[in-house]
């Protein structure tokens, strides 16, 4: 572990006391915040503005069976990555958009809407991505309880 990661960890804990046991340095250049909770937006602002994690690489959404997990992969231009996780319950899942700070996040958020069926507050109208326009309503492929319905017949 080099000092850069330690410094970022210390700064995060200093600013947000409850992160004490939630910040994890997995390896060189990889920092995880395991649950940012309610303070997610403030942590995101702090990380991107004060700590220099200014590049949004991607947003991963996944379903672990009981709740949805969102990981915001933030990177410093010089290589360190901060992965901020937040969780929402499976029923009536809502997340606030971050497109006002990161305009490039739009496509990742649309992907979450399409594949996980998450409501993104503040995301404007637009083309859907990546599913087709005639994709049936209420089918969200990345949910764990989603099953493929009409499988292509084998061989023919």
């Amino acid at each position, binding site marked *: 572990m080099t000092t850069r990661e330690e410094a970022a960890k210390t700064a995060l804990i200093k600013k947000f006391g409850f992160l004490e046991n939630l910040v994890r340095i997995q390896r060189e250049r990889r920092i995880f915040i395991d649950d940012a909770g309610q303070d997610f937006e403030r942590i995101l602002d702090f990380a991107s503005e004060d700590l220099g994690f200014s590049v949004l690489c991607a947003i991963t959404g996944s379903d672990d069976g009981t709740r949805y997990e969102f990981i915001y992969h933030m990177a410093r231009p010089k290589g360190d990555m901060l992965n901020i996780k937040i969780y929402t319950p499976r029923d009536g899942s809502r997340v606030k958009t971050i497109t006002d700070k990161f305009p490039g996040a739009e496509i990742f958020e649309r992907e979450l809407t399409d594949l996980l069926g998450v409501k993104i507050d503040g995301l404007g109208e637009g083309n859907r991505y990546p599913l087709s326009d005639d994709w*049936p309503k209420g089918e969200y492929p990345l949910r764990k309880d989603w099953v493929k319905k009409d499988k292509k017949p084998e061989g023919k």
Partner: protein
Amino acid sequence: MRKVVIPIGPQHPALKEPESFSVTLSGERIMAFSARLGYNHRGIEKACEDRSYTQNVYLTERICGICSHAHSTAFVQAVEEIAGIKIPDRASYIRTIISELERIHSHLLWLGVAGHEIGFDTLLMYTWRDREIVMDILAQITGNRVNYGMNTIGGVRRDIDDEQKKNILKAMDKLEERTLYYITVATSERTVIERLSGVGVLPHKDAVRLGAVGPTGRASGVDRDTRRDDPYAAYDRIKFKVITDDHCDVYGRTLVRVGELMEAYKIIRQALKDMPEGPITVKAPRKIPAGEAVSRYEAPRGEDLHYVKSNGTEKPERVKVRAPTLANVQTVAKMLEDGQLADLPIVIAAIDPCFSCTDRMTIIKHAGSRDLGAMAWEDLRTHGINWYKNKGVDFSRLNEKLKKANKV
């Protein structure tokens, strides 16, 4: 003047893959631009969840045909990180060499496509002829021209022997000479400069704001390169320059790409020289312990990011792929602001879009029965047969033949 909206795609000669853009024109000038992505969605992320890790290496490799090594390496790296596998030195050098060979073939391909988009087919034919050199080398080392199948969890599958080493070095010399020639052409052929410079401008500020990656970002002065910033494989032991440029236009992107070609030759020579002897693979468990990892890789088109989460079984819990084009495609609208229709193909091509990487999932359900007055496939077929029948050409015997053959 009246505005018209013209569709570019899903099928259009300028696009090599199906993707749909709609462009609002006033005369030749572009007033608005919007993209509809997703035509290449194949469900790979979902499919990864019910395949074993070994199978997934080959599945991720097929996310994209051009940067296949990029995706499989990124995936394998993440899995190795979770399992705590340290791959042998020789394997990481071989991964580096293949990844640079892939960059060479991808950039040469791009140069040809760029030539074609501006109507300079001679450049296309010449660069693709020279690209055959690197394709042959790749086929020699890995056994295939694309989808190399080189990676496996815990190392690489094939070694590079001395004769191949010699062949690679010979090919590098030849390609270096050719690349120098293309640099002269790109920087001193009047018609090429006219078509490239000042076109598709992406100012530094916007490149940072929209998160442009790879050569697209570097041509706008964004000094980011995963190979240097977050080294993987053997890149931490290799000296190379990160090429940046401040032209901010398509011309700049061309210069960055040809510059990277020159760097790639140096990297390969260096890697071949430094490559240690030893094994090329270590044994990997079939069951990967629970954990998660983010892996980054500098693909020819920019940073490729894989996130893998495991749950202690043979199959991953979640695989997330962020291909470089997804980060870059949002810059196109900015580049086309106030542009001309004639520049549209080259501007789209200049981010070197790879839409199959971007989309990853297809429709498993049959397309809905929207009747837009279009003909269904069967109707079209019947219509075609009848039309030829009226002309006196009858294919029904051919059908019988085919039926017979089908029964056999």
